[in-house]
Protein backbone atom coordinates (compact mmCIF):
# COMPACT_ATOMS: atom_id res chain seq x y z
CA UNK A 1 0.00 0.00 0.00
CA UNK A 2 2.79 2.36 1.05
CA UNK A 3 4.87 1.65 -2.07
CA UNK A 4 1.81 2.03 -4.32
CA UNK A 5 1.01 5.45 -2.80
CA UNK A 6 4.64 6.56 -3.21
CA UNK A 7 4.80 5.55 -6.89
CA UNK A 8 1.43 7.21 -7.57
CA UNK A 9 2.75 10.42 -5.97
CA UNK A 10 5.81 10.32 -8.27
CA UNK A 11 3.54 9.89 -11.32
CA UNK A 12 1.46 12.87 -10.13
CA UNK A 13 4.69 14.92 -10.09
CA UNK A 14 5.09 14.28 -13.80
CA UNK A 15 1.45 15.25 -14.24
CA UNK A 16 2.17 18.50 -12.37
CA UNK A 17 4.86 19.40 -14.91
CA UNK A 18 2.21 19.09 -17.66
CA UNK A 19 -0.49 21.12 -15.85
CA UNK A 20 -1.41 24.44 -17.50
CA UNK A 21 -4.20 25.63 -15.16
CA UNK A 22 -3.66 26.49 -11.51
CA UNK A 23 -6.76 24.49 -10.44
CA UNK A 24 -5.42 21.36 -12.13
CA UNK A 25 -2.01 21.78 -10.51
CA UNK A 26 -3.60 22.23 -7.08
CA UNK A 27 -5.78 19.12 -7.57
CA UNK A 28 -2.62 17.15 -8.41
CA UNK A 29 -0.89 18.57 -5.31
CA UNK A 30 -3.87 17.65 -3.17
CA UNK A 31 -3.92 14.07 -4.51
CA UNK A 32 -0.18 13.87 -3.95
CA UNK A 33 -0.70 15.07 -0.36
CA UNK A 34 -3.28 12.27 0.11
CA UNK A 35 -0.81 9.67 -1.22
CA UNK A 36 1.88 10.99 1.15
CA UNK A 37 -0.52 10.89 4.12
CA UNK A 38 -1.57 7.32 3.22
CA UNK A 39 2.11 6.28 3.09
CA UNK A 40 2.74 7.97 6.45
CA UNK A 41 -0.32 6.24 7.94
CA UNK A 42 0.80 2.87 6.57
CA UNK A 43 4.15 3.34 8.33
CA UNK A 44 2.27 3.54 11.64
CA UNK A 45 2.70 7.26 12.34
CA UNK A 46 -0.06 8.88 14.34
CA UNK A 47 0.65 12.18 12.60
CA UNK A 48 -0.84 11.00 9.27
CA UNK A 49 -4.31 12.63 9.79
CA UNK A 50 -2.65 16.00 10.48
CA UNK A 51 -0.48 15.60 7.37
CA UNK A 52 -3.61 14.78 5.35
CA UNK A 53 -5.50 17.84 6.58
CA UNK A 54 -2.57 20.23 6.14
CA UNK A 55 -0.96 19.02 2.89
CA UNK A 56 -3.98 17.67 1.03
CA UNK A 57 -6.72 20.06 2.12
CA UNK A 58 -5.76 23.25 3.98
CA UNK A 59 -2.74 24.51 2.01
CA UNK A 60 -4.15 23.67 -1.47
CA UNK A 61 -7.45 25.37 -0.54
CA UNK A 62 -5.76 28.55 0.67
CA UNK A 63 -3.42 28.46 -2.35
CA UNK A 64 -6.44 28.23 -4.63
CA UNK A 65 -7.80 31.47 -3.06
CA UNK A 66 -4.45 33.29 -3.21
CA UNK A 67 -3.14 32.09 -6.58
CA UNK A 68 -6.45 32.20 -8.47
CA UNK A 69 -5.10 34.64 -11.07
CA UNK A 70 -1.68 33.01 -11.50
CA UNK A 71 -0.72 31.51 -14.85
CA UNK A 72 1.46 28.40 -15.20
CA UNK A 73 4.13 28.54 -17.87
CA UNK A 74 4.55 25.63 -20.27
CA UNK A 75 7.71 23.61 -19.56
CA UNK A 76 10.45 24.06 -22.16
CA UNK A 77 12.27 21.10 -23.80
CA UNK A 78 15.18 21.91 -21.45
CA UNK A 79 12.87 21.44 -18.44
CA UNK A 80 11.76 18.03 -19.73
CA UNK A 81 15.39 17.04 -20.22
CA UNK A 82 16.21 18.16 -16.67
CA UNK A 83 13.18 16.26 -15.34
CA UNK A 84 14.35 13.11 -17.13
CA UNK A 85 17.86 13.52 -15.67
CA UNK A 86 16.40 13.99 -12.16
CA UNK A 87 14.25 10.86 -12.57
CA UNK A 88 17.30 8.83 -13.58
CA UNK A 89 19.39 10.27 -10.71
CA UNK A 90 16.69 9.47 -8.14
CA UNK A 91 16.11 5.96 -9.49
CA UNK A 92 19.81 5.10 -9.85
CA UNK A 93 20.98 6.79 -6.64
CA UNK A 94 18.18 5.81 -4.29
CA UNK A 95 16.61 2.70 -5.85
CA UNK A 96 18.53 0.49 -3.46
CA UNK A 97 16.84 2.20 -0.46
CA UNK A 98 13.37 1.06 -1.59
CA UNK A 99 10.42 2.43 -3.57
CA UNK A 100 9.32 4.85 -0.85
CA UNK A 101 12.58 6.77 -0.59
CA UNK A 102 13.31 6.73 -4.35
CA UNK A 103 9.77 7.97 -5.15
CA UNK A 104 9.94 10.57 -2.37
CA UNK A 105 13.22 11.97 -3.64
CA UNK A 106 11.84 12.03 -7.20
CA UNK A 107 8.86 14.06 -5.96
CA UNK A 108 11.16 16.47 -4.05
CA UNK A 109 13.49 17.04 -7.01
CA UNK A 110 10.67 17.49 -9.54
CA UNK A 111 8.94 19.84 -7.09
CA UNK A 112 12.05 21.98 -6.83
CA UNK A 113 12.33 22.00 -10.64
CA UNK A 114 8.73 23.22 -10.80
CA UNK A 115 9.52 25.92 -8.20
CA UNK A 116 12.52 27.07 -10.23
CA UNK A 117 10.30 27.38 -13.32
CA UNK A 118 8.31 30.16 -11.62
CA UNK A 119 5.50 28.48 -9.66
CA UNK A 120 7.34 28.61 -6.32
CA UNK A 121 4.33 27.86 -4.12
CA UNK A 122 3.14 24.79 -6.03
CA UNK A 123 6.69 23.50 -6.45
CA UNK A 124 7.43 23.79 -2.73
CA UNK A 125 4.09 22.14 -1.82
CA UNK A 126 4.89 19.21 -4.10
CA UNK A 127 8.44 18.98 -2.69
CA UNK A 128 6.96 18.95 0.82
CA UNK A 129 4.81 15.96 -0.15
CA UNK A 130 8.01 14.24 -1.29
CA UNK A 131 9.60 14.92 2.11
CA UNK A 132 6.56 13.29 3.79
CA UNK A 133 7.01 10.22 1.54
CA UNK A 134 10.70 9.99 2.53
CA UNK A 135 9.82 10.36 6.23
CA UNK A 136 7.22 7.59 5.85
CA UNK A 137 9.81 5.24 4.33
CA UNK A 138 12.46 5.68 7.06
CA UNK A 139 11.98 3.26 9.96
CA UNK A 140 12.12 4.52 13.58
CA UNK A 141 12.29 8.21 12.70
CA UNK A 142 12.05 10.46 15.82
CA UNK A 143 8.69 12.17 16.32
CA UNK A 144 10.22 15.67 15.97
CA UNK A 145 11.52 14.77 12.50
CA UNK A 146 8.14 13.34 11.46
CA UNK A 147 6.43 16.52 12.66
CA UNK A 148 8.95 18.75 10.79
CA UNK A 149 8.39 16.71 7.62
CA UNK A 150 4.59 16.61 7.89
CA UNK A 151 3.93 20.30 8.62
CA UNK A 152 4.13 22.30 5.36
CA UNK A 153 6.05 25.23 6.90
CA UNK A 154 7.81 26.46 3.76
CA UNK A 155 4.76 26.37 1.45
CA UNK A 156 2.79 28.15 4.21
CA UNK A 157 5.44 30.87 4.45
CA UNK A 158 5.35 31.35 0.66
CA UNK A 159 1.58 31.46 0.75
CA UNK A 160 1.58 33.98 3.61
CA UNK A 161 3.99 36.20 1.72
CA UNK A 162 1.91 36.00 -1.48
CA UNK A 163 -1.23 36.84 0.54
CA UNK A 164 0.40 39.87 2.19
CA UNK A 165 1.71 41.07 -1.16
CA UNK A 166 -1.75 40.98 -2.84
Amino acid at each position, binding site marked *: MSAFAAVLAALLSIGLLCARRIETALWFCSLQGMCAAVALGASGSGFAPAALVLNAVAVPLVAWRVLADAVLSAPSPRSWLLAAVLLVVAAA*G*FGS*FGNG*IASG*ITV*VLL*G*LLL*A*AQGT*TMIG*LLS*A*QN*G*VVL*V*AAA*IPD*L*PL*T*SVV*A*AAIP*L*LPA*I*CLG*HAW*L*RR
Partner: protein
Amino acid sequence: MAPEVNGTLAFAVVALPFLASGALALIASWRVGGWINAACATVLFILSCGLPWDARGNLVRLTTFIAMTTSWYAARDADEPPRLHRIACPALVGAILLALLAAQPILIWAALVIAVVAATAIVDTTPVAPRLLLSCGAGLVLALLGTLLLDLAPMPATLFLVLGYGGVAGLAPLHAWLVDTAAEAPSPGALLVSVLLPIAPLLIFMRLQTEAAPALLVALGLFSLLCGSALLFARPDPRQAVTLYGVAQLGLIECGIGLGISATPRLIAMLALARAALLQSRDGGPTYYAALLAAAVLPLFALYLLAEPAAAWSGWLLLPLGLGALLTTSALPRAVKAPTARSRLILLTPIWLEVALVVVLAVVE
Protein backbone atom coordinates in the same frame (compact mmCIF):
# COMPACT_ATOMS: atom_id res chain seq x y z
CA MET B 1 26.59 16.53 16.41
CA ALA B 2 27.94 18.70 19.22
CA PRO B 3 26.44 18.53 22.72
CA GLU B 4 23.60 20.93 23.43
CA VAL B 5 24.31 24.06 25.44
CA ASN B 6 21.84 23.83 28.28
CA GLY B 7 21.00 26.24 31.04
CA THR B 8 19.40 29.53 31.77
CA LEU B 9 22.12 31.62 30.12
CA ALA B 10 21.74 29.97 26.71
CA PHE B 11 17.96 30.28 27.00
CA ALA B 12 18.31 33.98 27.87
CA VAL B 13 20.65 34.56 24.91
CA VAL B 14 18.09 33.05 22.53
CA ALA B 15 15.01 34.58 24.16
CA LEU B 16 16.23 38.19 24.53
CA PRO B 17 16.24 39.07 20.78
CA PHE B 18 12.71 37.68 20.38
CA LEU B 19 11.57 39.74 23.39
CA ALA B 20 13.22 42.80 21.83
CA SER B 21 11.38 42.05 18.60
CA GLY B 22 8.07 41.89 20.49
CA ALA B 23 8.84 45.17 22.29
CA LEU B 24 9.70 46.90 18.97
CA ALA B 25 6.35 45.75 17.57
CA LEU B 26 4.61 47.71 20.33
CA ILE B 27 6.69 50.89 20.08
CA ALA B 28 5.65 53.24 17.27
CA SER B 29 8.58 55.69 17.51
CA TRP B 30 11.82 54.53 15.85
CA ARG B 31 13.77 57.13 17.85
CA VAL B 32 12.84 55.31 21.09
CA GLY B 33 12.74 51.85 19.47
CA GLY B 34 16.19 52.24 17.94
CA TRP B 35 17.80 52.91 21.31
CA ILE B 36 15.82 50.10 22.99
CA ASN B 37 17.06 47.78 20.25
CA ALA B 38 20.64 48.98 20.80
CA ALA B 39 20.34 48.50 24.59
CA CYS B 40 18.95 44.96 24.17
CA ALA B 41 21.70 44.07 21.68
CA THR B 42 24.35 45.37 24.11
CA VAL B 43 22.90 43.33 26.99
CA LEU B 44 22.76 40.34 24.64
CA PHE B 45 26.48 40.65 23.86
CA ILE B 46 27.33 40.95 27.57
CA LEU B 47 25.21 37.85 28.32
CA SER B 48 26.87 35.88 25.52
CA CYS B 49 30.27 36.52 27.12
CA GLY B 50 29.19 34.09 29.85
CA LEU B 51 28.92 31.16 27.39
CA PRO B 52 31.78 28.64 27.09
CA TRP B 53 34.84 29.88 25.16
CA ASP B 54 34.79 27.15 22.51
CA ALA B 55 34.23 27.40 18.74
CA ARG B 56 30.46 27.52 19.06
CA GLY B 57 30.51 30.02 21.94
CA ASN B 58 32.86 32.24 19.92
CA LEU B 59 30.52 32.18 16.92
CA VAL B 60 27.63 33.14 19.23
CA ARG B 61 29.70 36.05 20.58
CA LEU B 62 30.61 37.07 17.03
CA THR B 63 26.89 37.12 16.11
CA THR B 64 25.89 39.14 19.17
CA PHE B 65 28.84 41.54 18.68
CA ILE B 66 27.88 42.30 15.06
CA ALA B 67 24.20 42.56 16.07
CA MET B 68 25.26 45.08 18.76
CA THR B 69 27.40 47.26 16.48
CA THR B 70 24.72 47.15 13.77
CA SER B 71 22.05 48.23 16.26
CA TRP B 72 24.22 51.23 17.28
CA TYR B 73 24.74 52.03 13.62
CA ALA B 74 20.97 51.75 12.94
CA ALA B 75 20.03 53.88 15.98
CA ARG B 76 22.26 56.73 14.69
CA ASP B 77 20.95 56.39 11.12
CA ALA B 78 18.70 59.28 10.06
CA ASP B 79 16.56 57.09 7.75
CA GLU B 80 13.69 55.40 9.58
CA PRO B 81 13.39 51.78 8.45
CA PRO B 82 9.94 50.24 7.75
CA ARG B 83 8.23 48.86 10.89
CA LEU B 84 8.30 45.23 9.73
CA HIS B 85 12.02 45.60 9.03
CA ARG B 86 12.88 46.76 12.55
CA ILE B 87 10.76 44.02 14.15
CA ALA B 88 12.39 41.37 11.96
CA CYS B 89 16.04 42.36 12.63
CA PRO B 90 16.19 41.15 16.29
CA ALA B 91 14.09 38.09 15.34
CA LEU B 92 16.69 37.20 12.69
CA VAL B 93 19.46 37.49 15.30
CA GLY B 94 17.47 35.31 17.74
CA ALA B 95 16.87 32.63 15.10
CA ILE B 96 20.57 32.55 14.15
CA LEU B 97 21.53 32.23 17.82
CA LEU B 98 19.03 29.37 18.22
CA ALA B 99 20.55 27.63 15.19
CA LEU B 100 24.05 28.07 16.66
CA LEU B 101 23.14 26.81 20.13
CA ALA B 102 20.85 23.91 19.16
CA ALA B 103 22.26 20.40 19.00
CA GLN B 104 19.40 18.51 17.33
CA PRO B 105 19.67 18.80 13.52
CA ILE B 106 15.91 19.21 13.18
CA LEU B 107 15.92 22.11 15.66
CA ILE B 108 18.73 23.79 13.69
CA TRP B 109 16.61 23.40 10.56
CA ALA B 110 13.55 24.91 12.29
CA ALA B 111 15.68 27.82 13.56
CA LEU B 112 16.88 28.52 10.03
CA VAL B 113 13.27 28.47 8.78
CA ILE B 114 12.54 31.24 11.32
CA ALA B 115 15.67 33.08 10.14
CA VAL B 116 14.48 32.90 6.52
CA VAL B 117 11.03 34.23 7.52
CA ALA B 118 12.75 37.14 9.31
CA ALA B 119 15.03 37.78 6.33
CA THR B 120 11.98 37.82 4.03
CA ALA B 121 10.32 40.37 6.33
CA ILE B 122 13.48 42.50 6.19
CA VAL B 123 13.46 42.61 2.38
CA ASP B 124 9.65 42.62 2.09
CA THR B 125 9.49 46.08 0.52
CA THR B 126 11.92 45.15 -2.27
CA PRO B 127 11.51 42.94 -5.38
CA VAL B 128 14.14 40.54 -4.04
CA ALA B 129 11.74 38.87 -1.52
CA PRO B 130 10.32 36.22 -3.95
CA ARG B 131 13.86 35.29 -5.05
CA LEU B 132 14.95 34.95 -1.42
CA LEU B 133 11.94 32.71 -0.68
CA LEU B 134 12.62 30.54 -3.73
CA SER B 135 16.37 30.06 -3.11
CA CYS B 136 16.20 29.67 0.66
CA GLY B 137 12.97 27.62 0.47
CA ALA B 138 14.54 25.19 -2.01
CA GLY B 139 17.69 25.09 0.13
CA LEU B 140 15.70 24.33 3.29
CA VAL B 141 13.71 21.54 1.57
CA LEU B 142 17.01 19.90 0.53
CA ALA B 143 18.42 20.44 4.03
CA LEU B 144 15.33 18.80 5.61
CA LEU B 145 15.70 15.87 3.22
CA GLY B 146 19.38 15.57 4.19
CA THR B 147 18.53 15.75 7.90
CA LEU B 148 16.00 12.92 7.56
CA LEU B 149 18.37 10.72 5.55
CA LEU B 150 21.53 11.37 7.61
CA ASP B 151 21.51 8.04 9.48
CA LEU B 152 20.18 5.90 6.62
CA ALA B 153 22.34 7.19 3.74
CA PRO B 154 25.14 9.48 4.99
CA MET B 155 26.75 10.30 1.61
CA PRO B 156 23.67 11.56 -0.31
CA ALA B 157 22.37 13.13 2.92
CA THR B 158 25.59 15.14 3.22
CA LEU B 159 25.24 16.27 -0.40
CA PHE B 160 21.68 17.47 0.27
CA LEU B 161 22.76 19.20 3.49
CA VAL B 162 25.73 20.97 1.88
CA LEU B 163 23.70 22.10 -1.15
CA GLY B 164 20.68 23.04 0.96
CA TYR B 165 22.41 24.97 3.73
CA GLY B 166 24.84 26.35 1.12
CA GLY B 167 21.81 27.97 -0.53
CA VAL B 168 20.80 29.54 2.80
CA ALA B 169 24.39 30.78 3.30
CA GLY B 170 24.40 32.29 -0.20
CA LEU B 171 27.13 30.05 -1.57
CA ALA B 172 27.35 29.53 -5.35
CA PRO B 173 25.31 28.45 -7.30
CA LEU B 174 22.48 29.78 -5.07
CA HIS B 175 24.16 33.13 -4.30
CA ALA B 176 22.09 35.50 -6.48
CA TRP B 177 19.47 36.22 -3.82
CA LEU B 178 22.13 37.28 -1.30
CA VAL B 179 23.79 39.68 -3.74
CA ASP B 180 20.42 41.26 -4.60
CA THR B 181 19.45 41.48 -0.92
CA ALA B 182 22.66 43.34 -0.09
CA ALA B 183 21.97 45.82 -2.88
CA GLU B 184 18.25 46.40 -2.40
CA ALA B 185 17.33 45.95 1.29
CA PRO B 186 17.54 48.82 3.84
CA SER B 187 21.12 48.87 5.11
CA PRO B 188 21.04 47.55 8.74
CA GLY B 189 18.87 44.61 7.68
CA ALA B 190 20.93 43.92 4.56
CA LEU B 191 24.02 43.84 6.74
CA LEU B 192 22.49 41.37 9.19
CA VAL B 193 21.21 39.08 6.41
CA SER B 194 24.39 39.09 4.34
CA VAL B 195 26.89 38.89 7.22
CA LEU B 196 25.16 36.86 9.96
CA LEU B 197 22.93 34.40 8.08
CA PRO B 198 25.89 32.38 6.65
CA ILE B 199 27.40 31.77 10.11
CA ALA B 200 24.94 29.03 11.19
CA PRO B 201 25.29 26.97 7.96
CA LEU B 202 29.09 27.21 8.28
CA LEU B 203 28.89 25.74 11.80
CA ILE B 204 26.80 22.88 10.36
CA PHE B 205 29.49 22.28 7.70
CA MET B 206 32.12 22.14 10.46
CA ARG B 207 30.08 19.39 12.16
CA LEU B 208 29.57 17.55 8.86
CA GLN B 209 33.28 17.55 8.04
CA THR B 210 33.89 14.99 10.74
CA GLU B 211 31.03 12.80 9.49
CA ALA B 212 31.45 12.67 5.71
CA ALA B 213 32.52 14.18 2.41
CA PRO B 214 35.43 16.61 2.88
CA ALA B 215 35.99 16.36 -0.91
CA LEU B 216 32.46 17.66 -1.49
CA LEU B 217 33.07 20.66 0.76
CA VAL B 218 36.35 21.45 -1.01
CA ALA B 219 34.77 21.16 -4.50
CA LEU B 220 31.80 23.39 -3.67
CA GLY B 221 34.08 25.81 -1.82
CA LEU B 222 36.31 26.17 -4.89
CA PHE B 223 33.23 26.75 -7.07
CA SER B 224 32.06 29.56 -4.77
CA LEU B 225 35.54 31.08 -4.59
CA LEU B 226 36.04 31.19 -8.35
CA CYS B 227 32.45 32.27 -9.04
CA GLY B 228 32.55 35.10 -6.48
CA SER B 229 35.96 36.38 -7.55
CA ALA B 230 35.09 36.27 -11.29
CA LEU B 231 31.81 38.15 -10.72
CA LEU B 232 33.73 40.89 -8.86
CA PHE B 233 35.17 41.89 -12.25
CA ALA B 234 31.67 42.43 -13.72
CA ARG B 235 31.50 45.93 -12.14
CA PRO B 236 28.76 45.34 -9.53
CA ASP B 237 27.61 48.22 -7.28
CA PRO B 238 29.67 48.63 -4.06
CA ARG B 239 27.26 46.71 -1.76
CA GLN B 240 26.93 43.89 -4.27
CA ALA B 241 30.72 43.86 -4.52
CA VAL B 242 31.09 43.37 -0.76
CA THR B 243 28.60 40.48 -0.93
CA LEU B 244 30.36 38.86 -3.91
CA TYR B 245 33.60 39.23 -2.00
CA GLY B 246 31.80 37.42 0.84
CA VAL B 247 30.71 34.61 -1.53
CA ALA B 248 34.34 34.14 -2.62
CA GLN B 249 35.63 34.28 0.93
CA LEU B 250 32.92 31.86 2.15
CA GLY B 251 34.17 29.51 -0.56
CA LEU B 252 37.67 29.72 0.93
CA ILE B 253 36.24 28.99 4.38
CA GLU B 254 34.27 26.01 3.00
CA CYS B 255 37.54 24.70 1.51
CA GLY B 256 39.17 25.22 4.92
CA ILE B 257 36.40 23.22 6.60
CA GLY B 258 36.81 20.44 4.02
CA LEU B 259 40.57 20.40 4.54
CA GLY B 260 40.03 20.25 8.30
CA ILE B 261 42.08 23.32 9.31
CA SER B 262 41.70 24.29 12.96
CA ALA B 263 41.61 28.05 12.29
CA THR B 264 38.22 27.95 10.52
CA PRO B 265 36.24 29.72 13.32
CA ARG B 266 38.90 32.48 13.32
CA LEU B 267 38.51 32.87 9.54
CA ILE B 268 34.71 33.02 9.84
CA ALA B 269 35.03 35.73 12.50
CA MET B 270 37.55 37.76 10.50
CA LEU B 271 35.41 37.60 7.36
CA ALA B 272 32.22 38.59 9.17
CA LEU B 273 33.92 41.50 10.99
CA ALA B 274 35.66 42.78 7.84
CA ARG B 275 32.42 42.72 5.85
CA ALA B 276 30.45 44.35 8.65
CA ALA B 277 33.07 47.09 8.99
CA LEU B 278 33.08 47.68 5.24
CA LEU B 279 29.28 47.88 5.03
CA GLN B 280 29.01 50.16 8.09
CA SER B 281 31.77 52.63 7.19
CA ARG B 282 31.09 55.72 5.06
CA ASP B 283 32.73 56.14 1.65
CA GLY B 284 36.03 57.96 1.54
CA GLY B 285 36.95 58.25 5.25
CA PRO B 286 39.99 56.67 6.89
CA THR B 287 37.75 54.07 8.60
CA TYR B 288 36.50 53.00 5.19
CA TYR B 289 40.03 52.52 3.87
CA ALA B 290 41.07 50.63 6.99
CA ALA B 291 38.06 48.30 6.58
CA LEU B 292 38.75 47.90 2.85
CA LEU B 293 42.39 47.11 3.52
CA ALA B 294 41.46 44.47 6.13
CA ALA B 295 38.93 42.91 3.76
CA ALA B 296 41.32 42.90 0.81
CA VAL B 297 44.16 41.27 2.76
CA LEU B 298 41.93 38.55 4.22
CA PRO B 299 41.83 36.19 1.18
CA LEU B 300 45.63 36.12 1.21
CA PHE B 301 45.68 35.36 4.92
CA ALA B 302 43.17 32.54 4.30
CA LEU B 303 45.34 31.26 1.45
CA TYR B 304 48.35 31.27 3.78
CA LEU B 305 46.41 29.13 6.30
CA LEU B 306 45.09 26.78 3.62
CA ALA B 307 48.30 26.36 1.60
CA GLU B 308 49.90 23.61 3.68
CA PRO B 309 46.85 21.31 4.13
CA ALA B 310 45.90 21.91 0.48
CA ALA B 311 49.39 20.91 -0.69
CA ALA B 312 49.19 17.81 1.51
CA TRP B 313 45.82 16.95 -0.10
CA SER B 314 46.96 17.61 -3.69
CA GLY B 315 49.46 20.06 -5.16
CA TRP B 316 47.00 20.94 -7.95
CA LEU B 317 44.54 22.30 -5.39
CA LEU B 318 46.90 25.24 -4.77
CA LEU B 319 46.31 26.52 -8.30
CA PRO B 320 42.56 27.33 -8.10
CA LEU B 321 42.91 28.37 -4.44
CA GLY B 322 45.73 30.80 -5.25
CA LEU B 323 44.00 32.09 -8.37
CA GLY B 324 40.71 32.69 -6.53
CA ALA B 325 42.38 34.42 -3.56
CA LEU B 326 44.50 36.68 -5.77
CA LEU B 327 41.55 37.58 -8.03
CA THR B 328 39.42 38.44 -4.99
CA THR B 329 42.15 40.56 -3.42
CA SER B 330 42.91 42.46 -6.60
CA ALA B 331 39.27 42.95 -7.68
CA LEU B 332 37.80 44.17 -4.37
CA PRO B 333 39.35 47.68 -4.23
CA ARG B 334 38.41 48.29 -7.86
CA ALA B 335 34.86 46.90 -7.38
CA VAL B 336 34.06 49.04 -4.32
CA LYS B 337 35.39 52.07 -6.23
CA ALA B 338 38.38 53.36 -4.28
CA PRO B 339 38.22 56.91 -5.63
CA THR B 340 41.78 57.85 -6.55
CA ALA B 341 44.80 56.14 -8.03
CA ARG B 342 46.82 57.18 -4.96
CA SER B 343 44.41 55.57 -2.49
CA ARG B 344 44.33 52.43 -4.65
CA LEU B 345 48.12 52.40 -4.51
CA ILE B 346 47.98 52.76 -0.71
CA LEU B 347 45.54 49.84 -0.56
CA LEU B 348 47.33 47.58 -2.96
CA THR B 349 50.92 48.03 -1.78
CA PRO B 350 50.54 46.03 1.46
CA ILE B 351 48.56 43.40 -0.45
CA TRP B 352 51.39 42.75 -2.88
CA LEU B 353 53.83 42.76 0.06
CA GLU B 354 51.63 40.02 1.54
CA VAL B 355 51.76 38.11 -1.74
CA ALA B 356 55.54 38.37 -1.71
CA LEU B 357 55.58 37.16 1.90
CA VAL B 358 53.41 34.16 1.04
CA VAL B 359 55.73 33.27 -1.85
CA VAL B 360 58.81 33.67 0.38
CA LEU B 361 57.26 31.47 3.07
CA ALA B 362 56.32 28.85 0.48
CA VAL B 363 59.87 28.83 -0.89
CA VAL B 364 61.40 28.63 2.60
CA GLU B 365 59.13 25.68 3.43
